[in-house]
């Protein structure tokens, strides 16, 4: 059964999403801005064009599953959830205030977040289990998991990749946010990953690599992977820029951990506003 995508009416304008992230980060005086900015376009395309939530209910039994395994990018997901009406403006304005719900990393007790992440390498396996469940039930539900490139240092990712391929979970798609950085430096310097697409293909995935900030490219690649007749799980490697959208943050890994002050907040907002 195909459900209407309630999200179709939503714009998921990437400028607006980035502004929400900046507003949250400034309100909460928090970190991980760069981690959120690299996945803005990926999430915009997923929520706008692909994820199905019957009745716009984030916990609908027959929903598609979207697992943000790289929980560090959760502000990007909050921004989308705000657009969907799953979060209120106050939740954004009061980010990190005492007694509030939204945490700095993905927490599954929030409707709309499927896993508790931040300890990396968990969401991939949970996603494989969700996809396996859908397959066992002969359901059309699809599972998308977004992982970071640094995150795939974690062993369970590869355990899950073997399992997904062996069990032909063609309803499973991993999207790798290849922004080239992890907490302490570039992936080339910390743990060289080589060709992520080749690695996943070797594990039995049908894979493609695209510009992770080109919404049409992301959308087309996802459609093409689903249209494939193969029974393989799918992988989309998204080449992204950590901190994308704010020039002074782009490929500048200090924005993994740096907090905004009034001056950098204003400059960042202006940069997002002025970007094409």
């Amino acid at each position, binding site marked *: 059964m195909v459900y209407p995508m309630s999200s179709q009416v939503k714009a998921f304008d990437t400028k607006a999403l980035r502004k929400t992230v900046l507003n949250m980060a400034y309100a909460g005086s928090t970190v991980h801005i760069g981690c959120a900015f690299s996945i803005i376009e990926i999430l915009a395309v997923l929520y706008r064009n692909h994820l199905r939530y019957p009745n716009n209910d984030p916990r609908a039994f027959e929903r598609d599953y979207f697992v943000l395994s790289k929980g560090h990018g959760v502000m990007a997901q909050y921004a989308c959830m705000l657009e969907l009406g799953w979060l209120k403006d106050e939740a954004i304005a009061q980010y990190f205030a005492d007694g509030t719900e939204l945490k700095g990393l993905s927490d599954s007790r929030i409707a709309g977040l499927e896993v*508790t992440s931040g300890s990396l390498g968990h969401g991939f396996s*949970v996603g494989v*289990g*969700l996809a*396996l*469940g859908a397959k066992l*039930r002969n359901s059309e539900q699809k599972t998308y998991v977004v992982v970071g490139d640094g995150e795939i240092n974690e062993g369970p990712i590869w355990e*899950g990749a073997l*399992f997904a391929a062996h069990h032909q979970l063609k309803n499973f798609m991993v999207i790798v946010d290849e922004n080239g950085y992890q907490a302490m430096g570039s992936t080339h310097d910390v743990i060289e990953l080589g060709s992520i697409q080749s690695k996943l293909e070797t594990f039995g995935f049908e894979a493609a690599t695209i510009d992770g900030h080109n919404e049409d490219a992301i959308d087309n690649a996802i459609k093409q992977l689903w249209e494939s007749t193969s029974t393989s799980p799918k992988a989309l490697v998204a080449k992204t820029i950590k901190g994308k959208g704010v020039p002074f943050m782009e490929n500048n890994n200090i924005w993994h951990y740096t907090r905004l002050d009034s001056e950098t907040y204003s400059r960042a907002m202006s940069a997002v506003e002025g970007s094409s």
Partner: protein
Amino acid sequence: MRDAFSDALVRHAKADPGVVLLTGDHGYALFDDFRKECPKQYINAGIAEQNMVGMAAGLARAGFRPFVYGLSAFIPVRVVEQIKLDVAHDQLPVIFIGDGAGFVYSHLGTSHQSTEDIACLRAIPDLSIYSPADRFEVSACMDLAYQSNSAVYLRMGKSDRGDVHSNIPNLTIGELLEVLPGNGGDVNFIATGSLVRTAMDIAARKYPTASVWSAPFIKPIDYTQVTSICRRSRAVIVLEEHSVQGGLGSVVAEIASELSPVRILRIGVPDRFSQHCGTYEYLLKEHGLDHMSIEQRIHDFLEAN
């Protein structure tokens, strides 16, 4: 005991098609019946425990009722973080079976011996810990674990120590069962798993007025009952095939110290790894858990003030 486990598993899987069994490539012969009766509900997740537990969380989130089976050295110890974050935090109904707890794999060494599993899990909220003593408690615990619709770790230790019950007990979660009635006072034994039978044998022979209690639940455990036992005792002897740090002995001592202080002897695995290879009986002796060593320790403890 393993037959009782297999029977219960098959029974639940046949009654509920949402039950799925995940095994980390373990359970040789144990799952023959299950695979014959419910082949579509059997998933060998390979030698990949972390992924297996994550998947179980996903399956539970999708409405399934996963049983996750492994040796207790791996399930739960290798996957404590997956149990904490993916399962317990979400209050998902995943049942973990840790088989071969204690020194069952006596000849294989430390990698396969499991004497810290309870301690590793006790501090995780929204997770219960069951530790049945015989085949009847296994049946009752399997049913309660399924009915609880919550996350449970079920610890299965040495399976051939003999029965402690004559039929399946009518159990309530958290309850301790008096398996050898005494005069209600003086010395009370509280034991779990493989050492319940040992406690009964020692009490029957040496302390005929003592009561012996089986504790099939480490968490939750009935505080009122433990307090009541402690209040009427001159001394309490706790026995378990688990480290003395963080197991049943710790549970009883924590409760008693707050609610009803009494002298407690914690008999369990000392804070050290096994040194030698040998039979199960040999390993028990190495760790002071053979009958003679236990009797001596109890004697010394009761003699001392």
